[in-house]
């Protein structure tokens, strides 16, 4: 029995996405941005809150997209990084009285470190093994947060209540709206930074590793460094999203950050299109609104609806929202000509 595998014949872990296909054009970006700015002015507070969550999850999906679509590594453990970010923000705000806006960069930095360290053992794993290790991380995280040892800080099983910030400078808008615009500014900042990151030297290194690790190292890319870096960046962004999530929901508890969250984020990435950054917001909308609608039809059905839709996506539009967007673009192009 030979134990040699032909690496060349093997299906790649993630399909390659060219660099230019990762973002939207200027015009479309401005339209989406305009919608995101104007929409909440006409919505009730509850919907504004949902749109805030939409942006927060979009950030988390974006982070996963950088890791998987960019550098070709899996993670089913994003909920762990999200939890660390959320707890960092909550603890800084409630125990140390730090301003909410300042907690976000700290959450990001701590998660970057955590992700970078987790990336070290993950270096030796690829494909399915990496999925397994991160899966275990996600399952273990709520247990770690419940530990009696940290209880003084984390509040144990009960969790922590976070105060919602008021709009500054006496602006006459509600807390929810203020938080929405705050989140929007953070999200746009991170989105632009991510796009630039993927267009930079580091981004090219990520993609080289994704497409062919051996070739990349032959070209002089420090594979170990860039792989852990991708993990760190992804964890850092997820941490910021987690911090924002804690502020928006006003509550952190171990059981909000289970494997279900990690799976949702993964799902969001697949639906939005792996490696297509704007797809993150489509994926995020999917994971926020579809379960709600499914619950309306029948209680407990959301899992089945989720699963069936995921299969539909895999079979019919394997590139997710990106494929839909491309088809739409071509249709519009035809209409213009005709």
């Amino acid at each position: 029995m030979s134990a040699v595998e032909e690496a060349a014949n093997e299906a790649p872990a993630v399909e390659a996405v060219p660099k230019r296909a990762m973002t939207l054009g200027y015009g479309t970006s401005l339209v989406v941005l305009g919608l995101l700015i104007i929409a909440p002015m006409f919505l009730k507070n509850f919907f504004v809150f949902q749109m805030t969550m939409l942006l927060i999850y979009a950030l988390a999906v974006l982070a996963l997209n950088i890791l998987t679509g960019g550098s070709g590594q899996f993670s089913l453990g994003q909920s762990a990084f999200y939890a660390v970010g959320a707890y960092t923000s909550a603890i800084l705000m409630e125990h140390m009285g730090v301003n909410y806006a300042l907690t976000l960069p700290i959450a990001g930095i701590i998660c970057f470190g955590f992700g970078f360290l987790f990336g070290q053992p993950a270096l030796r794993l690829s494909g399915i093994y990496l999925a397994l290790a991160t899966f275990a991380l996600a399952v273990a995280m709520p247990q770690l947060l419940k530990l009696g040892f940290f209880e003084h800080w984390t509040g144990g099983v009960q969790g922590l209540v976070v105060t919602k910030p008021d709009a500054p400078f006496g602006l006459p808008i509600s807390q929810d709206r203020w938080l929405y615009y705050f989140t929007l500014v953070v999200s746009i900042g991170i989105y632009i930074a991510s796009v630039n990151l993927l267009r930079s030297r580091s981004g090219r290194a990520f993609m080289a590793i994704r497409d062919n690790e051996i070739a990349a190292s032959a070209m002089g890319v420090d594979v170990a460094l860039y792989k852990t870096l991708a993990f760190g960046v992804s964890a850092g962004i997820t941490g910021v999203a987690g911090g924002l999530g804690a502020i928006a929901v006003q509550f952190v508890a171990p059981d909000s950050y289970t494997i279900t969250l990690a799976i949702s984020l993964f799902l969001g990435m697949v639906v939005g299109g792996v490696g297509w950054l704007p797809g993150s917001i489509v994926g995020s909308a999917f994971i926020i609104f579809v379960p709600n609608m499914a619950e309306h039809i029948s209680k407990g059905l959301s899992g089945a609806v989720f699963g069936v839709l995921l299969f539909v996506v895999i079979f019919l539009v394997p590139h997710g929202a990106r494929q839909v967007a491309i088809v739409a673009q071509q249709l519009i192009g035809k209409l213009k000509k005709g």
Partner: protein
Amino acid sequence: MELFINQVLAGIATGAIYACMALAVVMIYQAIDHLNFAQGEMAMFSTFIAWQLMQWGVPYWWAFLLTLAFSFAGGIAIERMLFKPLAKAPVLTNVAGFIALFAIVNSVAGLTWDFTIKQFPSPFGSSPFLGSQLISTHQAGMIGVTVGLLILLYLFFQFTRIGLAMRAAASLPESARLVGINTSWMIALGWGMASAIGAIAGILIAPVVFLEPNMMGGVLIYGFAAAVLGGLTSPLGAVVGGFLVGVFENLAGTYIPGVGNELKLPIALALIITVLVLKPAGLFGRPIVKRV
């Protein structure tokens, strides 16, 4: 010393659960080179079927056999319908498929049989085994069944034509096709067998952890840990790994201060990562060399 021996025995008893699950995980890994994240849910579903049959008044062993047959057919059906088209797809797509299957099975079981905890009977009874307080007859029976299953699998793979064909299809698909083996159906067969083994695992585990749609969550993680420890390519390794994980878990709980029930899953996590980093092929697996 007596405490130590007792803990090892108790560990072996729980280890039998993990060994069963790991065996199913390894079976499917051998056939398709993927870890089936939905394995635990499939086993749970089979166990519910057995429970339902017994509720309808089918005797235990008939229900057992019918469930095995159903699981076998179900595993093949899932492979044919959902995963055969994905055979050439990237790993990511397959992982997404497994997760989708996980969600569907879990949700359907919850809808059909609701989330209340149900008692599941044991064919071995639950009195103390040979006067020992630590191992019940059920746990002893479980160890026996696991070892028996392993021997059967060994005989099947070593001494039957179809077992040989399955091994050929798994290790060198191209050459296997050239000598006339229908590799596609061998994979389906692997799914069916893994599903049936999962059903046995579920039926054995259910009297211990009680029957409910989420019963397999923790067990599956330990099953993965056991499979990884023993080596994902070796059924024997999976079973040995299962027992080792059970013993390790119990000893860590006894001798390392601060490790109680709440740290059980983090231990599995630490174990998986340590093994993957130090010896990715596991104790019994064969390392795979890649040719560029």
